Each structure stands twice: as structure tokens, then as C-alpha cells.
């Protein structure tokens, strides 16, 4: 057994142990912290699968932004947890569920073991057409060129999620701002962290977006890092979330999908196919679309974390 194999087995065991902790931990807060740890370990696993783009997404969204969302929720729901003595499944139903889940896991594991060593692959095709897009990163090419429609609809899903979250607001708060108000005296340590982190993070976010054309990275990852920076500034309460009725906010939320769709329609008119890019002009078009996607993601994720409006709209 090589050192690398031993490392892989150790990592797998660690992932399993932390995952089991998030399921069986005694309290919700302990479970959510476990989930944050788990997300970080998962990005290590993605590195071992040589999927660096995915590792970057998992690190930024799976661990970072989701962690903020869940830890915030767990801290707020602590009162509910102690008040409600909820019946946990027990006795034979619990055993039945456990057996069912073991069977599902074993069936899946069987499928995994039966997979051929060299599976069918679209990698040759995606590399073959890569020069036409002008990009160097095939994953970005898949996202914005080969499967552009898919990615565009996924942006629509994000907008719908924001609409869903906002529609949970109480009537009088509709159009108001979510989250905490700006603090007169912010917690000094948190403010210090946010003030140093945010400029650096904005730099890193734009860098990740920009290199995404040719190296691991891209609009999702860059946008998620930018989103995280807005979240930390809001958490430090140096600034407050905008009014949800603000026109600029709504414009920024839909800019990504709208520009993407417009580019798709333009492709149908000028390049002979829906979401086709004119030859020789593909890379600028892709970067143009991506820039608006970064903007939309950087605005959408903080709005999803901030939750529904909780203050009355200012006139």
C-alpha cells in the first residue's frame, strides 16, 4: 500500500466520521459545526479526484456560505430545540429505517464497484471544441458554452429561491430590509476582521473569476467569494442589507440570467443557433456573460443568507 493510498483511506474515514457526527450529534449546533468541518474535508476529496473547480465551489459555497446560513439558523432555533421535546424515531421503526438505509448504501456501493475503470467520457469532444470557445478551462466551456441553457436555467432557480425567501416576509415588512440593522458600535473584532478581509476577498474573488477562463475557477466560484465578503461585512454590521424593494438590487439579481438569455437569443439571430456564439467572438461573449453572472451570484447568495425582510420599508 502506498502512502497516497493510506492517505486516501484516512481521509475517507475522516469524512465518514464527521458525516456520522452531523447525523448523530446530540444538538443541532454541534451538528452544524460538524457540517462545516465536513464541507472542508469534502473539498480535500474533490482535490484528490482532480476536480479542482468543484473543490473551489465546495470550499466557497458548501463549507463557507452554507456554514454561515446553518450556524445562524441553529443559534436562532436553539430556543425551539430546548422547548420542544420531539419524539425521535425509536424501537423497530428506527431499526427498519437503518436497515433500509444500509441497503441503499450497499446498492450504491455495488454500482460504484461495478463501474468500469475507463468509463464513457465526453472529455475528448469537449477538448476538441475548446479552441472554438477561446477558453482554456473545459469546465468553464461546459458551463457557459456547451451546456449554456442548463446554466442559464440554474441562474433562474437562484432568482426563484430569492423570490421564495422574500415571500416569507410578514405583510408589513414587504419591501423592507432583511437582517440586522447597522450597529452604532460594531463588535470591534468582527469589524476589524471584515475591514481587512473584504478588500482582499474582493481581489481574490475577481482573480478567481478572471483565471476561470483558462484555469480552475470561474463565475460561480468568484461570485461566491465576493458574496462571502458582502456577508462578512453585513455580519460585522458595518453595513446593513439593502431594502428588498431597491431597484438596483432587483436589477443586480436578475442581471445574470437576463444577460445570459439575451446572449442566447442573440446567438439564434446572429450565429445560427440558440446559445451559439459567433466564431472568433466567443471568448469576449463568454466573459461578458460571466461578468453579469458574477454580479448576480455575489448579490443572490447574501440575500439568501440574510433571509426574508424583517424591518418595515423606509420611505
Amino acid at each position, binding site marked *: 500500500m502506498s*502512502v*497516497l493510498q*493510506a*492517505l486516501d483511506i*484516512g*481521509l475517507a474515514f*475522516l469524512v465518514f466520521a*464527521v458525516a456520522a*457526527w452531523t447525523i448523530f450529534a446530540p444538538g443541532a*449546533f*454541534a451538528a452544524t*459545526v*460538524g457540517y*462545516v*468541518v465536513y464541507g*472542508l474535508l469534502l*473539498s*480535500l476529496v474533490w*482535490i*484528490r479526484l*482532480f476536480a*479542482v473547480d468543484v*473543490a*473551489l465551489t465546495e*470550499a*466557497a459555497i458548501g*463549507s*463557507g456560505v452554507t*456554514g*454561515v446560513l446553518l*450556524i*445562524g439558523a441553529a*443559534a*436562532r432555533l436553539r430556543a425551539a430545540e430546548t422547548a420542544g421535546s420531539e419524539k425521535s424515531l425509536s424501537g423497530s421503526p428506527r431499526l427498519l429505517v437503518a436497515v433500509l438505509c444500509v441497503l441503499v448504501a450497499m446498492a450504491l456501493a455495488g454500482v460504484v464497484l461495478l463501474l468500469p475503470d475507463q468509463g464513457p467520457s465526453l472529455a475528448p469532444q469537449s477538448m476538441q471544441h475548446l479552441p472554438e470557445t477561446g477558453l482554456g478551462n473545459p469546465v468553464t466551456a461546459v458551463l457557459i458554452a456547451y451546456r449554456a441553457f442548463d446554466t442559464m436555467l440554474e441562474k433562474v432557480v437562484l432568482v426563484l429561491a430569492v423570490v421564495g425567501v422574500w415571500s416569507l416576509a410578514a405583510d408589513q415588512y414587504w419591501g423592507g430590509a432583511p437582517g*440586522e*440593522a*447597522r*450597529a*452604532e458600535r460594531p*463588535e470591534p473584532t*468582527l469589524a476589524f*476582521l471584515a475591514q481587512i*478581509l473584504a478588500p*482582499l*476577498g474582493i481581489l*481574490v474573488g475577481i*482573480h*478567481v473569476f478572471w*483565471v476561470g477562463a483558462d*484555469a*480552475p*475557477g470561474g463565475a460561480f466560484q468568484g461570485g461566491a*467569494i465576493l458574496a*462571502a*465578503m458582502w*456577508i*462578512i461585512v453585513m*455580519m*460585522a*454590521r458595518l453595513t446593513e442589507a439593502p431594502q428588498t424593494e431597491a431597484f438596483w438590487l432587483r436589477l443586480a439579481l436578475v442581471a445574470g440570467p437576463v444577460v445570459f438569455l439575451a446572449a442566447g437569443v442573440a446567438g439564434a439571430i446572429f450565429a445560427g443557433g440558440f446559445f451559439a456564439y459567433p466564431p472568433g467572438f466567443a471568448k469576449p461573449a463568454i466573459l461578458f456573460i460571466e461578468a453579469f453572472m458574477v454580479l448576480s451570484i455575489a448579490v443572490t447568495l447574501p440575500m439568501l443568507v440574510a433571509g426574508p425582510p424583517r424591518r418595515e420599508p423606509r420611505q
Partner: protein
Amino acid sequence: MTEFLLATAGVILFTVAVGLVRILGGPGDADRLMAAQLIGTGGIGALLLISAATGAHGVEDVALGLALLAAFASAAFVNSAAPAEAPDPADGR
């Protein structure tokens, strides 16, 4: 050398795992947040070592992303716990 880098990554992950066993279980939330902090640092260290050994490209950016977000769990905890602990005059409606 590759073997050495991988072995050290393994040792770091192992020590971090031992630390996790101790603090993920508590007793307090503070200890649990330390778990997130510890795995952040150890994970980044292991990540850098593994990428140096296996030659996966672009891993520095992943580590950079993780480093940027390393304090987020603690920040989220303080942010959501603070209003209940000490009401801020700016907060009241």
C-alpha cells in the same frame, strides 16, 4: 520527497482528527467552534502538501478560498448569539 509530503499531510490530518474527537463533542459551543478552526488550518496545510505532492493545478486558489472563509463559522456564531446576550441599543425597535 513526494512520499514525505504525503506522509506529513497524513500526519497533520491524523492529529487534526484526534483534536476533532476531543472538541467536536464539546462541552461548550466554544470548543466546537475551535473544531471548525482547527480543521480549517489543518485542512489548508494538508491541501497544500497534497497538491505539492500530486501536482494538481490551481489548488492554491482553493486554499486561498478556504483561508478567506476560515473565520466565518466563528463570525456567524458571534453574530447570531450577540443580540440575545447583550441587547444593542441600535437593535431595538
